[in-house]
């Protein structure tokens, strides 16, 4: 038996969510007294042996250019072959865009219970129970899996990356790979920017900014913090900002270490998408804004005055002139 971790890569690079999944999987293996092993599909540009740092003893590499783009149907069959070959009893995915495509398929294929959106290590004291977010972050549930093989999709930013010493043995895995039916024709990526779901710090703004032309100061603040930018629903609906920046119940749910909300009143639907953030800072000129109740730190004041000053103060702290 073993714990198998799916290592998601993008353009050859191992994603941060995968490093979290590896660290989490290594800990689960330790709990169960077994080994943690990784599986990589496609053509990585990184040295896979280095993944040993995150606690895996082996990395199974299925090297086939047909796997360079995600076709969940093809991926699922390949991962199922690896899982069976290594007698995996627990299979871990990052609960990111790719994980959400593959993990449910694998669950149905292997008849293995799936917990998606896990936020803590499994409790194995009485069965196998994992805590996950429900009601869009307004609550959590402990879910138990009754099947011999278990699948966990770990929420981004829910478990810290733990890097130590170690090198993994990299083994080529010879899998049957179907011809993909899904053909990826193009992809666009906002280069140089931090992906919202992986960001440690997120700077977000709402209608209080009055118009899309005022986003420069938000981007300046995000830049000094190496943060991703986000927005509230009305802002995305008014096309001031792209839809992929909308955080909230019907947008993207995030859990960064620091969330700075500027000119956002804090409707319950918005809070649902961000209330797993570790530290929340609210800047709003209305002292009655409901967001202050969910915040750790707040400034009641005009964003147009406060935000540029905040950017300068952070530059000073970081020694950037």
């Amino acid at each position, binding site marked *: 038996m073993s714990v198998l971790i799916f290592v998601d890569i993008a353009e050859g690079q191992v*994603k941060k*969510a995968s490093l979290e999944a590896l660290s989490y999987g290594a800990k689960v293996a330790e709990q169960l007294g077994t080994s943690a092993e990784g599986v990589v599909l496609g053509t990585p540009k990184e040295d896979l042996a280095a993944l040993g740092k995150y606690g895996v003893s082996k990395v199974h590499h299925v090297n086939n250019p047909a796997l360079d783009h995600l076709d*969940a*149907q093809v991926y699922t069959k390949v991962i199922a072959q690896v899982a069976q070959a290594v007698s995996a009893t627990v299979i871990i995915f990052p609960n*990111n*865009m*790719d994980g*959400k*495509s593959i993990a*449910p398929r694998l*669950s*149905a*294929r292997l*008849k293995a*219970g*799936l917990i*998606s959106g896990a936020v803590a290590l499994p409790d194995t004291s009485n069965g196998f129970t994992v805590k996950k977010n*429900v*009601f*869009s972050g307004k609550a959590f*549930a*402990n*879910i*138990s*899996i*009754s099947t011999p093989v278990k699948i966990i999709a770990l929420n981004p930013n829910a478990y810290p990356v733990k890097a130590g010493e170690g090198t993994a043995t990299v083994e080529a895995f010879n899998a049957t790979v179907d011809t993909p*039916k*899904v*053909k990826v*024709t*193009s*992809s*666009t990526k*906002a280069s140089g920017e*931090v*992906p919202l779901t992986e960001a440690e*710090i997120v700077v977000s703004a709402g209608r209080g900014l009055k118009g899309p032309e005022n986003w420069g100061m938000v981007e300046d603040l995000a830049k000094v913090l190496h943060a991703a930018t986000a927005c509230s629903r009305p802002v995305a609906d008014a096309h001031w900002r792209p*839809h992929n920046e909308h955080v909230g*119940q*019907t947008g993207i*749910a995030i859990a960064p270490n*620091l969330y700075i909300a500027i000119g956002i009143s804090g409707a*319950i*639907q918005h809070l*649902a998408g961000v*209330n797993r953030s570790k*530290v929340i800072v609210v800047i709003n000129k209305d002292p009655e804004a409901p967001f*202050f109740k969910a915040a*750790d*730190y707040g400034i*009641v004041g*005009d964003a147009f*005055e*406060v935000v540029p*000053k*905040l950017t*300068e*103060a952070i530059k*000073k*702290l970081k020694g950037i002139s």
Partner: protein
Amino acid sequence: MKILVCISKTPDTTAKITFTDNNTKFDTNGVQWIINPYDEWYALVRAIELKEKDPSATIHLITVGGADAEPIIRKALALGGDEAFRVNADSHDSFYIASQIAAIAKEGAYDLILTGKETIDYNGSSIGGMVAELLDLPYISLASKFELDGSKATIIREIEGGEETAEVNLPVVVSAAKGMAEQRIPNMRGIMAARTKPLKVTEPIAVEALTSVTSFGLPPAKAGVKLVPADNVDELVRLLHEEAKAI
């Protein structure tokens, strides 16, 4: 073309979340139920738009739920759709639900199966992928655009920090995210028509659930906000750096 849209009933987005029976059950007292927003605003409305372009298309709706799910499926029929199925079962296990949908879908030989990207209560994002696997069909999740040219679908899906365009031939299962369509309000004609549209109630097939809810809980309340004067931004930076260790 035959389209199947999966519909789930969820609590209203402003519903207060509390639990009963020693934190093992969601307290439905006073809760308003709605069609899961992703199922309604994006999956169902996109299906309706496809039918508006190709009137020969048929749209079937499916929900897995008890009699209390009927107002929701009728509301969905009021927006659009030709007929609906309700599988008479109550479950919170994604595999159980997906198996029921797959059993009906197999009979119907659909060209396109649409789901919302997740429900706003259990947030599993699992039904679409499971149905696709059970039917051995391709699956594209988190689609923000869906265009059809004959039997070739062009789909834009979200990826970390960007998007990806993919092509796939029908039949396919797609989960819908924001951007795929715009929310619509049912009109009086639709509401009247929905009353007479066929709604077939079927009994579930025998399937073992793979997971079960042991207990629920609420996140710990925040200690309270620390307010910093607007003219002392340096103090906020100090607190974030020294106390919260967030920067």
